[in-house]
């Protein structure tokens, strides 16, 4: 069947302006839900970047008791060099540690006075072969059992904590986004139903003179799609502003650690694309369901 594009465009346009308050409500709900989704996506991409960034920096530190017996120190050293899981390890001597200590506390001489060179603990810097944090932690736990080991500290431990937190935040936002998307779907469904109710006489005539279901349906589905896409457009603006705010904060506070949260143009483009697509699909489908149910009733 031939669709008259000009007719469909005219009808869709009229539908959009026919009920502005409901239309605006729909657009705003879509915008809010997709902004949440977009924020969750920002966090996810940021976390993924964070993991990549610290994947190469997974060394851990084995602190040795200050009064360690020489044979225990030798045992630790031998175990490390014999291990197939370790790519490199280095023993940092008491003199080196003390030098570092002096450097670190040079502003506070009182602290320096309290500590004598033979009281500072020494440590091994260990670089494992397998960069996965869980594997590294398992490895570290093994060394913790060795006599003379005071503590095992992971460079990546605080990354993991941050990671856990951001993951949780992203999950919470995703859940909120899903609920919010549900709300916008329902609202859009109702908008289209209201629009159809307002035009029930026209639809009745259309059916009587032999318009196909698709001909009746399409303007309403396009209306939903456009509302969804406009809502998504607002959410893209909100997400871009959010990202700009984050980057500004990161730069101002010199938070190099979180630099991966400053998303690249291509990441932002991809997120924007997904948001617009989601908005359009939500709009198209929810109005499609509303129209089908109305026409089948």
């Amino acid at each position: 069947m031939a669709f008259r594009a000009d007719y469909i465009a005219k009808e869709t346009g009229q539908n959009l302006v026919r009920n502005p308050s409901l239309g605006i409500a729909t657009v705003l709900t879509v915008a809010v839900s997709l902004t949440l989704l977009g924020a969750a996506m920002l966090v996810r991409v940021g976390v993924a970047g964070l993991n990549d960034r610290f994947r190469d920096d997974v060394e851990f530190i084995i602190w040795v008791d200050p009064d360690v017996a020489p044979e225990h120190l030798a045992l630790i050293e031998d175990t490390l060099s014999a291990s197939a899981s370790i790519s490199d390890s280095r023993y940092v001597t008491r003199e080196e540690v003390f030098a570092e200590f002096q450097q670190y506390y040079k502003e506070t001489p009182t602290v320096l006075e309290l500590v004598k060179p033979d009281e500072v603990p020494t440590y091994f810097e260990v670089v494992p072969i397998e960069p996965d944090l869980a594997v590294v932690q398992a490895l570290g736990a093994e060394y913790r059992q060795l006599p003379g080991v005071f503590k095992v500290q992971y460079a990546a431990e605080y990354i993991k904590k941050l990671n856990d937190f951001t993951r949780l935040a992203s999950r919470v936002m995703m859940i909120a986004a899903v609920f919010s998307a549900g709300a916008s779907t329902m609202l859009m469904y109702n908008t289209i139903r209201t629009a159809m109710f307002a035009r029930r006489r026209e639809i009745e005539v259309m059916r009587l003179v032999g318009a196909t279901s698709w001909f009746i349906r399409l303007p309403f589905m396009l209306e939903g799609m456009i509302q969804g896409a406009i809502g998504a457009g607002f959410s893209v603006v909100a997400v871009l502003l959010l990202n700009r705010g984050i980057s500004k904060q990161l730069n101002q506070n010199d938070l190099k650690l979180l630099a991966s949260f400053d998303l690249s143009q291509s990441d932002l483009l991809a997120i924007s694309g997904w948001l617009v697509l989601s908005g359009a699909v939500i709009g198209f489908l929810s109005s499609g369901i509303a129209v089908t149910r109305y026409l089948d009733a």
Partner: protein
Amino acid sequence: MIKLEDVTKEYPGQTIALRNADADIGKGEFVFLIGPSGSGKSTFLRLLNKQEAPDSGRIFVAGKDIGKMSKRDVPKLRRNIGAVFQDYKLLQNKTVNENVSFALEVIGRPRHVISTQVPAILELVGLADMAHKYPHQLSGGEQQRVSIARAFVNRPLILLADEPTGNLDPQTAIGIMRLLDRINKTGTTVLMATHDRGIVDQMRRRVIELADGHIVRDQSRGVYV
């Protein structure tokens, strides 16, 4: 053109609207459906363009069993069946011209077809000079003419008219009947449900009388009785 075989239609919780109805209406006939309110006249008409489906029996339109027709084919059926109602069913926000054009637009007719067919049909129904008026600026008779123009603009094989003169004074009703008669003379089969004794008696066409869903009389050149 139209054939009903043992058709029964019941609305849930109501009396039976049509009971074991049989009828055979040929091409180009003019048939009055008469009977009191609730006797099944409107149901009879609504079954023909699949606004309703029968509970049992078969209905043939132009040789096709419309019960076996898929949902997708219903619009095609309706393009061959014009429908006119007592309340005109005009779109108040559209002009006369737009109301009639609408029927062609929504079935995807190209613009040049619409721009030639619509003025021609408005000429036929005598509303050529009212093309740009809105329904509320017209009399009842004029609105019914617009409704007939819309139903006939696509040159359907069948025209269903459900009490088309029900809201009109006798003089205006005669004008509408003349118009339906002209349309019938072009070869279109006309089925008209009516209460109007004067019109039936004057026109002397085939009469199918319904009572409580039964066809109680089918008489050619009949009167109201």
